[in-house]
């Protein structure tokens, strides 16, 4: 009998430390070897692409002149490359080199056709962003760079330039007893706006650097008046936006142009569209400028602002809802299937640190969904835009960086939704409850906010507070305070800024992941 106990068996392999990379590799192996999950990821990509192409193919536009249908003219582009509205009446002359224009505004009035509630009368009144003032513009063609000092219908004096920029001056309106003096000084590319109540003591409003001004520019008086907007809920869901024709008139005197002028005063209806002219303009009061004894009355309609009316790039990828649902189902199954089959016990035996296992799963499923979204966006954005161009539809142009953000955003949206769904799966351990919860959290608020008859106030809350706030990352056009528009989720304007919206979704995903890790630690499998 030997006294010593036999030495216990020890493996000769070096002790392996549980490395996170190994966990990720293990989870990736699980994912890619389940045929249904890989098929789901591919199906999500294909569905998103197919629906984007359906949206593109289902959008046509043609502008008819009588029986002949022609392609719609592209809207003018501003100096920043964005589509702009540029329609106004311009009484102008040429200025060579540096100089200034000064004018006194003594009255401003206008008409609004058929406003609510009656929709049966033409009333006198100004829309909030009716504009009248002095302007320096590179040329009297739509889209040319400009700077202007103006009085608005309800937002006081403003200095605006190059369509997107807007600086506030003093508030208030104008009357015979309280006239407004406006002055714009040009020195090279630098334009400075001033205003005054008496024409003697001037206060500076702002300074603008306007690139693209040639030596000779057009200076003069202008009047514009954008359409009056009413929004009504549509009976079949969505909303009906109506813009009504408005016109504004302004009375100027003490008009003075300093500097080297050339040629006579000219009258130009900038951006005039004969076909869009209303009966009011044709038969009652035409736009124009009339002078008698130094008093000049200018009448105009239209707007000088970024254009928001048109097809937005991201409409091609918002068809991603069915793809998003597929991603949610796959992500939930990625964890609940382990519970069903008992694989979770093996998984946790191999990697006992449960939080890290969950992190590895989140990384794998999030990365797969991100990739699915990126691939879909990379295909559907260029292809859809090509189809739209072929259908004669003008897509509002956005900078390359914004385009990239929309594509990346689709990937991030799918990725974070997958992480949230996976975490809910780990939390509930039941696939149906997790799928319903994830769809109710991410997809349903978006559907309710954009496609239902529920009120817009509810839509704003839903897309600000729920995980569906992440859809904001797809918004391609910014809000402009100086443009009256229907800024609603259904029109592609979300209550939160793009990255903030995505951060809300990321926060929910992180919270769910944290809860799942905490529950996983406290429970037997």
């Amino acid at each position, binding site marked *: 009998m030997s006294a010593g106990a036999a030495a216990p068996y020890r493996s000769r392999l070096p002790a392996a430390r549980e490395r996170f990379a190994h966990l990720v590799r293990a989870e990736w192996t699980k994912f890619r070897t389940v045929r249904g999950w890989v098929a789901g990821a591919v199906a999500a990509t294909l569905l998103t692409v197919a629906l984007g192409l359906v949206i593109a193919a289902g959008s046509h536009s043609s502008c008819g002149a009588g029986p002949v249908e022609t392609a719609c003219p592209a809207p003018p582009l501003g100096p920043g490359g964005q589509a702009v509205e540029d329609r106004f009446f311009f009484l102008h002359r040429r200025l060579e080199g540096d100089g200034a224009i000064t004018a006194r505004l003594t009255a401003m009035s206008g008409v609004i056709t058929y406003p609510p509630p009656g929709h049966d009368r033409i009333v006198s009144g100004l829309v909030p962003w009716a504009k009248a003032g002095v302007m320096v513009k590179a040329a009297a063609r739509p889209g040319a760079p400009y700077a202007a000092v103006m009085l608005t219908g309800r937002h006081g004096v403003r200095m605006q330039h190059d369509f997107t920029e807007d600086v506030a001056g003093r508030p208030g309106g104008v009357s015979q007893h309280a006239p407004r003096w406006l002055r714009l000084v040009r020195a090279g590319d630098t334009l400075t706006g001033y205003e005054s109540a008496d024409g003697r003591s001037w206060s500076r409003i702002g300074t603008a650097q306007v690139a693209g001004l040639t030596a000779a520019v057009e200076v003069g008086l202008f009047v514009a008046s954008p359409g009056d907007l009413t929004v009504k809920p549509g009976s079949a869901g969505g909303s009906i936006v109506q813009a009504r024709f408005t016109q504004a008139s302004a009375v100027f005197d003490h008009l003075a142009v300093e500097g080297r002028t050339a040629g006579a005063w000219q009258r130009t209806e900038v951006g005039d569209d004969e076909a869009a002219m209303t009966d009011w303009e044709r038969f009652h009061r035409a736009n124009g400028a009339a002078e008698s004894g130094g008093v000049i009355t200018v009448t105009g309609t239209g707007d000088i602002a970024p254009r928001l009316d048109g097809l937005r790039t991201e409409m091609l990828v918002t068809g991603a809802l069915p793809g998003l649902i597929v991603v949610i189902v796959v992500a939930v199954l990625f964890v609940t299937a382990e519970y069903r089959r008992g694989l979770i016990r093996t998984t946790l035996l191999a990697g006992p640190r449960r939080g890290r296992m969950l992190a590895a799963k989140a990384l794998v499923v999030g990365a797969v969904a991100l990739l699915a979204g990126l691939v879909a966006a990379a295909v559907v954005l260029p292809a859809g835009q090509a189809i739209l161009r072929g259908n004669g539809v003008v897509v509002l142009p956005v900078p390359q960086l914004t385009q990239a953000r929309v594509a990346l955003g689709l990937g991030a949206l799918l990725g974070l939704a997958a992480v949230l769904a996976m975490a809910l799966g780990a939390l509930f351990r039941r696939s149906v409850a997790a799928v319903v919860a994830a769809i109710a959290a991410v997809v349903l608020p978006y559907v309710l906010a954009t496609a*239902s*008859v529920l009120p817009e106030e509810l839509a704003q809350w839903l897309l600000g507070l729920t995980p569906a706030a992440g859809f904001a990352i797809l918004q391609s056009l910014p809000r402009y305070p100086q443009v009256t528009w229907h800024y609603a989720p259904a029109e592609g304007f979300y209550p939160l800024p793009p990255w903030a919206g995505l951060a809300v979704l990321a926060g929910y995903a992180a919270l769910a992941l944290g809860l799942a890790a905490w529950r996983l630690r406290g429970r037997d499998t």
Partner: protein
Amino acid sequence: MRRELHAEWTKLRTLPGTGWLLASVVALTVGLGAAADALAGCPWRGCGHDPARLALGGVQLGQAAIAMLAVLIISGEYGTGLIRATLTAMPRRIAVLAAKATLVTGLALASGSLAVLGALLAGRLILPGSGFTAEHGYTLAADGPTLRAALGSVLYLALVGLLGLGVGAAVRDSAAAIGVTLGLLYGTAALPYLVGDPDWQRLLWRISPMNAGLAVQATRDLAQLPLGPWQGLGVPAAWAAAALAAGAVALTRRDA
């Protein structure tokens, strides 16, 4: 058939989730409807909102619980393997599916009636405070159209249940089945509003079970709807019939 009904009812009755799901149909429908009632505004004559659709808007959320119940009633049995015991005891598979369909319909009608009544009551209480008054021309009256909206909403919920049951029988995997069901309901609802062409819009709207089915809730501007109220309800009915047929075929042809 009575045996099958009794067996299915016993199974369903003894599951703790059933009661919760039915209660959540009522809570979700009334809750979202009340929120919509409170947040909507009707400041002037002709504000355009349809008070019945606002009050019953919560059906869009409540239907998720019905769909979940309906999917689980069949795919849950596949998940646990109970389906083999069920089919051994009751070999007439179509009768089993019919019993399940009867139960789903009955429970959906019962919980849907409660939910719709609660939502209408909430509307009667809340909507006048949001400006839906007689002088603005918008009241939630107890008239024919409102009755149709209420009755139609209950029937819609039953059709959603049958759709979920059919999909559950055809797909079997519960996660995939609920994904398909909610994908049909929610995934297709936003599409018509993203397409520019009016003809495409109407087509996509007409084939979407949720958009077309909820047309039954409309009480105003019926002429502007792509489908009439009862015709609209025919769309989810057609989807439910197709799903049930596919489910019946799958159930009889495949091994459990």
